[in-house]
């Protein structure tokens, strides 16, 4: 163990090394191309950004290297024992069941997400609020809380939906009806995976449909093709890359996700890779690191493959048929089907978010999970109980503090790095960019496993500390925040800043007067999403938290193992309410603070010169 650590320590300087060499090369090549006599090459801003960027890259690269090494080196000796141990597991069954759940949920998610996106972007069944809301659902009702909600609805005996179904069946004269659906089954797992997958596929498909040149469809209709023929011969082929990208995005997210398998898979007795890793590291004594590392490797290979495929599809642009002008067609008329389509969309949102939320709140407020809801017992007494429980309170306080601190750090770092990358050379900037987005491409779980190996033993001894959790949250959330920050920087770049420089403004004045005000809305949005993600995280929380440093996610995992659904519902409700409020507040603030970008509301008053 000691040697592993020392080896990885030797590794850490090179992690920053290539970058410096790369930088040197970029510097040299630019120096050769043209003399830059007046250019301040190493401003404080650049130095700070560089140090921060390299530090954060090391934070993910070093744990990854640790995982790789732990696979072949045990106690300082080269060995294949971990690999053998891994292969001795029921590995085919594990991978197989993970694949079944992930792939079937992907198929359903593409079908549902695609249909919703098409209805919402290309037909007159469009509902603006819906398209804003749908991709946000994983943040409004985080998977950890959502899974509990679905258990409350679809548990074979106590589930509210199943109870109602049996009652209804009895009413129609079927006395011994079987439950409508068992959450603890393949179907149940796939259902919950699909609900969250739809948000991801919708997120990728809807923009593609939005920017698709309407003339393509109109041309098809003018030549006499029917609505369906236009859809299948013109629209679908054009957005195929986005469909594939959405599907792969979900594959890569779902493969490494811990929350849903941990909450539901355990009860269903279906083992999935991510859940097994958590079990091996947290709920086994002594922790079986070798096997966990081997399984992590499988996850990272699949995730990496999906990511490579996705970026290839997105880069090839073979089908890119985006119109030159922002031409917006009249949406396709659905006629009598319009009401049906709208009803279906509303029903979808109600069933997938409102029902689980209601189930959570009901159990949390009545304090019991029973078919016959005791309307008289509604009250906040169970919340009070949680608030008086010092252990639960410690978890809540930890989660909130960590969420606020991590979100702030991550957003500031992401903004710094994005600005820095936008300004630095092509090769070097790209390198930093890839490094920062690495956790997203390799699966957060694998990096956390690396952190467990690296930081919990000597020489760090950070096991069970809040600091280690903070590091992990920051490392995991940086990629997403970084993508938001990139978008913000891209919107500010170019002529807007150049014209400020031409006007004689100093670098700092340009930053505070032009760049920062324009970036704030996107950064506030990113902050809210990171905060919610930290709050509802189970990946780092399950592996790095403990009784000494509890967080909400860890406590929910414990409670679900004990089967205390009342307390679980209370925590899940708190999580859902805080998430929803935070995200909606951020959306509102984003709109308010970028009010200058929106077209003014049409005035009811006639202009002065026309009166």
């Amino acid at each position, binding site marked *: 163990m000691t040697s592993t650590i020392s080896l990885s320590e030797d590794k850490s300087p090179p992690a920053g090394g290539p970058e410096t060499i790369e930088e040197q090369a970029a510097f040299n090549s630019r120096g050769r191309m*043209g*003399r830059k006599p007046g250019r301040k090459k190493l401003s404080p801003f650049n130095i700070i950004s560089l140090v921060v960027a390299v530090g954060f890259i090391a934070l993910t690269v070093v744990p990854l290297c640790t995982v790789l090494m732990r696979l072949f080196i045990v106690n300082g000796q080269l060995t294949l024992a971990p690999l053998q141990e891994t292969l001795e597991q029921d590995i085919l069954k594990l991978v197989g069941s993970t694949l079944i759940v992930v792939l079937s949920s992907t198929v359903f998610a593409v079908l549902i997400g695609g249909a919703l996106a098409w209805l919402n972007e290309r037909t007159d069944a469009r509902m603006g609020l819906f398209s804003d809301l749908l991709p946000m659902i994983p943040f409004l009702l985080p998977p950890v809380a959502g899974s509990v909600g679905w258990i409350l609805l679809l548990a074979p005996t106590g589930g509210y939906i199943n109870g109602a179904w049996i009652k209804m069946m009895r009413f129609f004269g079927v006395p011994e009806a079987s439950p409508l659906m068992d959450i603890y089954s393949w179907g149940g797992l796939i259902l919950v995976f699909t609900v969250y997958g739809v948000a991801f596929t919708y997120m990728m498909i809807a923009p593609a449909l939005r920017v698709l040149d309407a003339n393509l469809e109109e041309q098809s209709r003018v030549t006499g093709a029917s609505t369906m023929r236009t859809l299948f011969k013109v629209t679908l082929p054009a957005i195929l890359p986005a469909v594939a990208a959405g599907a792969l995005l979900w594959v890569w997210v779902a493969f490494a996700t811990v929350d849903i398998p941990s909450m539901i898979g355990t009860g269903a007795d279906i083992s999935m890779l991510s859940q097994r890793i958590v079990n091996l590291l947290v709920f086994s004594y002594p922790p079986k690191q070798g096997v966990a590392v081997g399984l992590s490797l499988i996850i990272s290979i699949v995730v990496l493959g999906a990511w490579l495929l996705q970026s290839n599809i997105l880069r090839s642009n073979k089908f890119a048929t985006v119109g030159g002008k922002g031409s917006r067609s009249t949406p396709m008329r659905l006629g009598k089907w319009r009401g049906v389509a709208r009803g279906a969309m509303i029903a979808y949102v109600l069933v997938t978010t409102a029902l689980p939320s209601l189930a959570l709140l009901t159990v949390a407020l009545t304090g019991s999970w029973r078919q016959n809801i005791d309307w008289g017992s509604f009250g906040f007494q169970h919340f009070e109980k949680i608030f008086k429980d010092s252990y639960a309170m410690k978890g809540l306080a930890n989660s909130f503090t960590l969420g606020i601190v991590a979100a702030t750090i991550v957003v500031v770092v992401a903004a710094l790095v994005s600005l820095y990358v936008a300004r630095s050379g092509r090769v070097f900037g790209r390198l930093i960019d890839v490094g920062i987005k690495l956790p997203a491409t390799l699966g957060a779980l694998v990096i956390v496993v690396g952190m467990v190996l690296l930081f919990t033993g000597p020489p760090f001894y950070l096991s069970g500390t809040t600091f280690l959790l903070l590091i992990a949250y920051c490392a995991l959330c940086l990629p997403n925040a970084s993508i938001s920050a990139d978008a913000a920087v891209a919107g500010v770049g170019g002529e807007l800043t150049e014209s400020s420089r031409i*006007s*004689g403004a100093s670098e700092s004045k340009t930053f505070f007067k032009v760049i920062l005000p324009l970036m704030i809305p996107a950064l506030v949005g990113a902050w809210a999403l990171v905060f919610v993600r930290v709050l509802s995280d189970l990946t780092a929380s399950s592996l790095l938290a403990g009784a000494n440093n509890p967080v909400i996610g860890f406590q929910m995992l414990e409670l679900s193992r004990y089967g205390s659904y009342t307390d679980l519902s209370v925590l899940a409700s708190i999580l859902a309410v805080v998430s929803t409020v935070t995200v909606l507040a951020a959306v509102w603030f984003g709109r308010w603070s970028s009010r200058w970008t929106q077209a003014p509301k049409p005035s009811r008053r006639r202009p002065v010169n026309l009166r």
Partner: protein
Amino acid sequence: MSTPQMAVLKTKAEEVPTTTPTVQASTESREVLTITNVSKFFERANGTTVPAVDGVSLAVRSGEFLVLLGPSGCGKTTLLRCIAGLEQPDAGRIVIDGKTVYSSVERIELSAQQRTLSMVFQSYALWPNMSVFDNIAYPLRNRKIRKAQITDDVHRIAKLVGIDEVIGQFPNHISGGQQQRVALARALVSGDALVLFDEPLSNVDAKVRKDLRIELTALQNRFGFAAVYVTHDQEDAMELGTKIAVLEKGKVAQVASPREVYQNPASRYVATFIGSTNELEGKVVSVDATGLYIDTPLGVIRSERPHGGFAPGDEVVAIFRPEHGYLTPAHPGTVNALKATFRMELFSGSHAEQVVTHNHKVYRVWHGQEQEHGSEAWIGVAPEKVHVFER
């Protein structure tokens, strides 16, 4: 109701004495911008270097309006950005208002914010988070000017370009034409001797464009700044420029007044880029004291405007403009008579264009009558209107 450009023209006509301190109406013309041998190379992905700007030397005096004209990729925008300090040239010297801002030999390079010039961008680059007033005031606020003075100056310039009504609005809440004027006001408010324009009229429609051209010229006459204006639109170039620099692959092909460039182009490239032309490739048959004869697919043509010395047998191209040609159904009996086939008449309001072909090549002339499709037609053109360049 007076349109903004009327306001500009009126103030100009009344010759309001220049009370604005920022407006320096200098009587004597001085050199505001001098570019000497400026080069800028780009590195392709495969490692080869391409000259975007290749040893360009130009000078602009105050009150002059220099248009950099060329097709996309000729280096005109790169040159402009080098002047602004937004890109670093690889060689040469740039002097603005007597101050060297870039010199590869002396290793001088001032950053964009240290150069006293203004610029109007193609996208206008109005900061969406600032009101129109704040946008215009921004350059002044960077120069430690009293608040009251700034307010005065901003309102004066806003009135001048006709946007005083929208001064409290955000840029995204006003029309495209108004945004254009805000960008213009922001460039003019600090009274810099040099103003750069990067295709600022390419985003507005033809009618507004025409109006803005007149306004821009009026403003320049009033303020007396030196302008460098990048465009690929020859109409912009002809109407705005006091001097046009036609760029070809990073080099200056010709610098002259719009009239000179049009009537006496320095090369086939310049002739064909500005205005429309008829090109006849052929061989020199004979040369005499005043001109030469060329054998072309349409017959022998005489030219009295050879550009360069030619000898019989040289491969050349004869070029004349459509407005100098006239069409007749029979041989006109003039020195130059070229036989072709009539195709169609294109009526464009101010004139009608007669289109003829020969061997699938199209020729156009603006004088003559419509005749039957496919009938024989003869083009006549005066020898002094036919330019000859080497091929």
